[in-house]
């Protein structure tokens, strides 16, 4: 089920929340679990067994680690078990066909692909459960004694399919006991709505623009249009992904949980390093804490540091999808980050801010073009169009057409990609009570109107893709 859909918004969520608020405290987890399982089974009825299996493995390993793990050595055994099983599951369901295709290509073999559908959210929940096992091994979290609680944590529908990657350590206390108050429900609702508007009114529309430009025959798109397309996809991906995080965080808040923030205006970065501190934060910190630092981080000399960066960015790329373009995309960032660290980072900082913004944005946009084409040949064609060596002109009237048709999406998208909203909020906070009341009324009208328009788009919707099916 997609959050931005009629069944979810008008049936699943209200029903879940009504029940959740009605039942007494100790039953709340059960309601949450039940609805999470329905949510997961909605699109993938069979893979629910996989979810049971994966959580059971980690739960048992956790209990065993506590019971028999008197020494770190013994504890390590259970940790290795857990991580190995998780990675195998992930490898089998997500990467088997990729590996087969690669082997077939390298050695001209005729292995048959398995053709398994990717279980929704597998990349997210395997990473979550691994974080539990590792943190437990490091004695950073207490063991979870209730399987149902553990399953509730992993399957929790707000964050199940597209993150943020909520670590057990973040929510273990709230799993036992949490405060549900009016404040949290309101805040959560508004946050959810913001995400919903971003997804339906911006991401989906920017996506439609990208699809239109992508469908142009080679040579038909001028350089300007090709760049407009790349920008449209960048906006689509950012708004789609961050909207999902907004909705997840918002629903978490309504349920009494505090999930970590996942995005911090990444398109307003001033360097690549800055970008990765702001983009998909729960993933980059996961790799930092569980791969990069254990490998030694930057403390063991330049050579090792470079090696570690390469490993982490290779994995980050691969995590995003089972195709070479994702690996390439990861390595592209690995290399650029290394260059910023060791070559031009200092020089960059002395440049005017506008130039640094432009520099980061250019790298990000080009990066997302690598990200979007899993067909290397198509990627090459598109890059040639962007560079103007596809026999295309610099500028064409078709660009005006797209600009005119999508102005109403592009303009607010660009504005909202920068921290305009917090700035306005801060301005309002410092106003007098009259001004604040007026602002609240405007925001009320805004929420209601945007919600109705969003419903109108959903009712009519033909284009509501789900970008994370690969993750």
């Amino acid at each position, binding site marked *: *089920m997609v959050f931005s*859909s*009629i*069944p979810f*918004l*008008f*049936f699943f*969520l*209200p029903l879940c929340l009504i029940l959740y*608020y*009605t039942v007494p*405290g100790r039953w709340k987890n059960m309601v949450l679990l039940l609805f999470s399982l329905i949510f997961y089974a*909605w*699109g*993938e*009825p*069979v893979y629910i067994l996989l979810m049971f299996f994966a959580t059971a493995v980690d739960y048992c390993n956790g209990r065993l680690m506590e019971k028999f793990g008197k020494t770190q050595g013994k504890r390590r055994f259970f940790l290795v078990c857990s991580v190995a099983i998780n990675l195998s599951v992930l490898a089998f369901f997500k990467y088997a066909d990729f590996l087969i295709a690669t082997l077939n290509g390298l050695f001209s073999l005729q292995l048959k692909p398995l053709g398994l559908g990717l279980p929704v959210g597998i990349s997210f929940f395997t990473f979550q459960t691994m974080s539990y096992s590792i943190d437990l091994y490091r004695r950073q979290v207490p063991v979870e004694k209730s399987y149902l609680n553990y399953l509730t944590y992993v399957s929790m529908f707000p964050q199940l399919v597209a993150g943020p990657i909520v670590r057990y350590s973040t929510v273990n206390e709230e799993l036992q006991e949490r*405060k*549900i*108050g*009016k*404040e949290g*429900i*309101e805040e959560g*609702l508004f946050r959810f*709505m913001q995400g919903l508007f971003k997804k339906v009114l911006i991401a989906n529309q920017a996506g439609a623009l990208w699809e239109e430009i992508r*469908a*142009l*025959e080679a040579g*038909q798109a001028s350089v300007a249009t090709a760049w407009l397309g790349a920008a449209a996809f960048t906006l689509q991906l950012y708004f789609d992904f961050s909207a999902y995080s907004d909705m997840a965080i918002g629903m978490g808040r309504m349920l009494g949980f505090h999930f970590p923030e996942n995005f911090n205006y990444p398109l307003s970065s001033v360097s690549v390093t800055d970008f990765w501190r702001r983009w998909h934060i729960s993933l980059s910190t996961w790799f930092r804490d569980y791969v990069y630092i254990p490998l030694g981080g930057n403390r063991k000399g330049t050579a090792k540091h470079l090696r570690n960066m390469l490993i982490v960015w290779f994995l980050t790329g691969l995590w995003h999808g089972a195709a070479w373009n994702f690996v390439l995309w990861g390595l592209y960032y690995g290399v650029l980050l290394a260059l910023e660290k060791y070559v031009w980072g200092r020089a960059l900082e002395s440049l005017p801010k506008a130039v640094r913004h432009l520099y980061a944005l250019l790298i990000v946009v080009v990066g997302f073009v690598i990200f979007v084409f899993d067909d290397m040949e198509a990627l090459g064609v598109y890059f040639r169009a962007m560079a103007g060596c596809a026999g295309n002109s610099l500028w064409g*009237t*078709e660009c*005006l*057409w797209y600009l*005119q*048709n*999508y*102005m*109403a999406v592009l303009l607010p998208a660009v504005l909202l990609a920068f921290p305009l909203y917090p700035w306005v909020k801060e301005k309002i906070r410092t106003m007098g*009570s009259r001004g*604040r*009341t007026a*602002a*609240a*009324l405007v*925001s*009320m009208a805004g*929420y*209601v109107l945007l*919600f*109705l*328009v969003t*419903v*109108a*788009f*959903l*009712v*009519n*919707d*033909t284009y509501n893709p789900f970008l994370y099916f690969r993750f």
Partner: protein
Amino acid sequence: MSIDIVNGISNAVNYNIGQKWMEGTGEQRMKEQETGEKKIRTLTALLLMGITLLLPVLFLAMDKKEFSENENRYLAKFPIWGLERIKEGEYMEDLESYLADHFPFRDFFMEMKTKAEMWTGKKEINGIYMAKDGYLIEEYEKPENTERIGQILKTFAQELEGQNAELRLMLVPTAVSVYREKLPDYAPVRNQMETARMIYEISGIEPVDCSGDLEAQKEKVELYYRTDHHWTTMGAYAGYQAYCRAAGLEAVALEEMTSRTAAEDFRGTVYSKSGDYGRKGDEIIIYTNPSDKLKVEYADTGEVTDSLYNLEYADMKDKYSLFLDNLHSLIEITNETADSDRELVLIKDSYANSMVPFLVHHYKRIYVFDTRYYKQGVSSFIKEHPGVTDVLLLYNMNTLDSDLGIRGVY
């Protein structure tokens, strides 16, 4: 509603729900002096929740329509249970379509989306260009099956080698091509006739290119409906003239026929798709040749009439269906007073329906096939009917690419 009343409601509801919501903490917050700002915030949340609860309740309470007049299609039915269907996820998919199709105020929301897009400068909505002079024009999507369609037609032609019948192919451009000047500024246009040329070439069938006739007349008469994807009777007449030239017939002049307005306020498919439901409809004009003595037999229903029109459709939504009674797998039309003994097999989509009234004058018998529904193979039919002297394949360029019917020609 004045703001005082709103505040009053907000306070009352706030207190009641607030009690339930307050688990653990929050007591002290309740005691806090609530400012106007906070009240409005709460009210906003309540309004949003109210909408979210009201719409599904209305959904459950309201009668479900079977058919959408505006969209001209049957709405989804409540899905059937079944373990297998649940396992495959089909049940859930159907349930989602059912919810979307019967959503309360669906037409209102559809129109709201379109209006919102129009206000913000969008000139293409749901694949429809908001064109000049009140025209709604369907876009021409990137063709995907050109080669395949060409090959199918080629096979069909090969099947008929050695038959006496003359084979012709007429691919009709749609409004997006003929009325390209009416499209909004800068709208990108794919060349339909380029695709048509490729299909003519691959199939090897004698082409009947009517685009010249349409181009020549487009300033003088309205060749396409403003709100529908079909050509008008005048468009069909231009196509008929092109065909007559190719087949060596003498086209009957319009003045020799009687005309009448069969329907007014025809709001067609493009209108439905656009979601811009405030527009005026089109007129449908029909022609009859008083000298024709017709017998029209519908093979699938067994019905026999003497008219090419079913005017019952004039009062319905889909008024274009009044030509040849909408969809039939095979229609046999006999004209006792035809000006020749020739027999025509017409394999076509709905564009041909408005051209048949002109063609009947020249053929003793016309067999009209819709290969989406006729499954026995038209080529074997032709072989079994040696009287057939002409075969015309007629399709419009917009639906040709996705028209699965064409695969059934042989």
